[in-house]
């Protein structure tokens, strides 16, 4: 009888463990970050600074998180502009190896060309970013836009499309002032206001701007 009881417990205990595992939290706690790097002519000289942002992200993101880095060019709604992307595996040691490989993948972006693209398709980049982030199924999604936020489109490019940024945080990084902004700061402020309104209207969870790269720790703060 006692042996039978022991056997019953031996069967029930793993079953209870499996039951607990089945109760796993369905809400994802993973983070996904999509970094858009402006490589247009007005901003190309700033691209060197993006290394700091990527290093910070690689050092901060955990196993299970996703990261992608893409260029913003004349037309950016394409996967071809994604320089590197990775979802870090659950094993922390393998995740470290992935991060090293990621760093090597994005290295050419920093070297870049002296001349940037003629136009700046930030909207296309955001559309691409939202698509990528939603596919990851991460719980916390963030788009980082390393740009002066001055969008310039050629005549054939249509970007008058509604954005869907539900649950996505948008952070503008290193938003430099243009010469025209220097002459009339209202242009700069109105540009930022326009983007904030557009992003919030698209359902974004948050809009934030960080110009001082010393405060990168605020990038992933909720």
């Amino acid at each position: 009888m006692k042996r039978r009881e022991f056997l019953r417990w031996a069967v029930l205990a793993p079953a209870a463990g499996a039951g607990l595992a089945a109760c796993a939290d369905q809400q994802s706690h993973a983070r996904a970050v999509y970094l858009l790097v402006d490589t247009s002519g007005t901003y190309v000289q700033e691209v060197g600074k993006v290394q700091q942002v990527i290093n910070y992200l690689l050092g901060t993101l955990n196993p299970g998180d996703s990261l992608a880095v893409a260029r913003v060019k004349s037309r950016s709604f394409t996967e071809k502009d994604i320089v590197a992307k990775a979802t870090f595996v659950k094993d922390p040691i393998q995740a470290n190896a992935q991060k090293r490989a990621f760093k090597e993948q994005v290295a050419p972006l920093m070297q870049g060309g002296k001349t940037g693209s003629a136009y700046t398709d930030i909207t296309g980049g955001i559309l691409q970013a939202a698509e990528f982030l939603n596919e990851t199924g991460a719980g916390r999604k963030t788009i980082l836009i390393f740009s002066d936020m001055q969008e310039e489109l050629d005549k054939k490019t249509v970007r008058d499309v509604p954005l869907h940024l539900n649950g996505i945080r948008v952070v503008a990084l290193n938003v430099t002032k243009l010469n025209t902004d220097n002459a009339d700061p209202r242009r700069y402020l109105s540009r930022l206001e326009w983007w904030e309104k557009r992003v919030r209207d698209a359902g974004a969870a948050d809009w934030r701007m960080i110009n001082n790269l010393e405060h990168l720790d605020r990038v992933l703060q909720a």
Partner: protein
Amino acid sequence: MSWMIWPENPALSALTLFLIAIPFLYAARAPIHGVVESLAAALSNALRLGARSLLAMARELRSRNRLVLLAQGREETAQTVEREFQRVTALVERDLNGYPALQRQLLENITRLEEDYKKAGEVPPPPPEWVKAVESMGKIKNGGDGLVEKLLKDISSSIGTVYDKVLAEYRRSCDERHGILKRFIPFGRSLNETLTRVDRNITGLQASAARIDAQMDNYEQIRAGADRVEHLLYSSAVTQFFTSGLVLAIAFGGAFVNFWLIARPMSAMVGGGQYIVGDLEASHIAALVIILLEATMGLFLMESLRITHLFPRVQNMNDRMRRRLLWAAFTFLLVLAGVEVALAVMRDYIVAADIALKQGLGNVPVAAGKTDWVMKIPVAGQMLLGFILPFALAFVVIPLEYFLHAARNVCGALLVVLIRAVAVVLRILSNAVRHLGMALVMLFDAVIFLPLIAERAIRSRRSGERKDALPPRGAVSGKAGSTS
């Protein structure tokens, strides 16, 4: 529609309305008094009833607490007495079982001592009779007779030889006796040691008997339910509660260190970034499960060793089963300790890889981790900690048992105090409600004071008229007295 008769003068409107309302209020005085008084009485009685039932509950709880406390005290004393009896039994079995042999040894020693003593007392046989003859001959005077002289010389030389022999024999005999006396010493020492041991055992038995007596007195007092014992047991329970609580807090500190030692490497085993409930990572829960498993195995180990008595079924197991459980728990604990050692090594490996990556990334502002302090412990130290902490955690069960037992008494006593405090508050509220009712009645009367004054005046006038109409009291009594 406004309530104001004169909208431009609210005060006058209010006064007018008040004056209009006064007759109605006066008319409704008795029912309003009744409503207020009955409501206040109902509420006050309910509160008083509640207070009374709470006090009864507190009394009941206190008596139950007392029963539990005395039962615990009785059990503890019984265990102490039992332990003392076991000690005495062991002492008796160990020593008194050997008493026949001891007695035999003592008797043998004493017999040998007596024999040796007798031997030592034996003196050489007295000188033979011819010595007397020689003495008589020695008295013969040497008168210059050559024959006598020669005879005496011969006798003297013969006696000298014999004397030497006798003296040698005497010395040999003395030596023998000294030898016998020398052999006394070890027997005497052995005898002394044996008697000292006996004395020690007897003293130990007396001490145990005194302890048993004291515990039995205590037991008797507990059985009699003496107040002094109750107070002693309460103070002992409170002391135990705080002492075991302190030890448990220290043990939780150890468990905390253990947790952070294994939480990070666990992410390599169960996967990082996976969440089970809320913000609890799967790796953290896995680490917690390991620590809880260690504590559970420790509990079974202590139960099997009969150090703690939390599970009566384990206590009632036969020795064979109990020994099996003991070895099973110990093996699990050993395996878990081994797992922790492996995790400590893996942890160091992960941390090293992480540091290497961050150094490779350049000047990355690294967020201050929760476990940075653990990095300062060398890997050997981490391994040692990983091995020792599970076994240290096993001992947590001992203070836990004390804590649970003491907590029952302390929490019970606190509950009694709390219930009494609530009862007092209810009693105060009951009185307050009763007085509030009275105050409301008086306030109502104060509001309608004008008709009340009028009523009082009319009543006093009527009573005055009635008094006038009635004959004087003395006359009535005098009349009554004369009638009687």
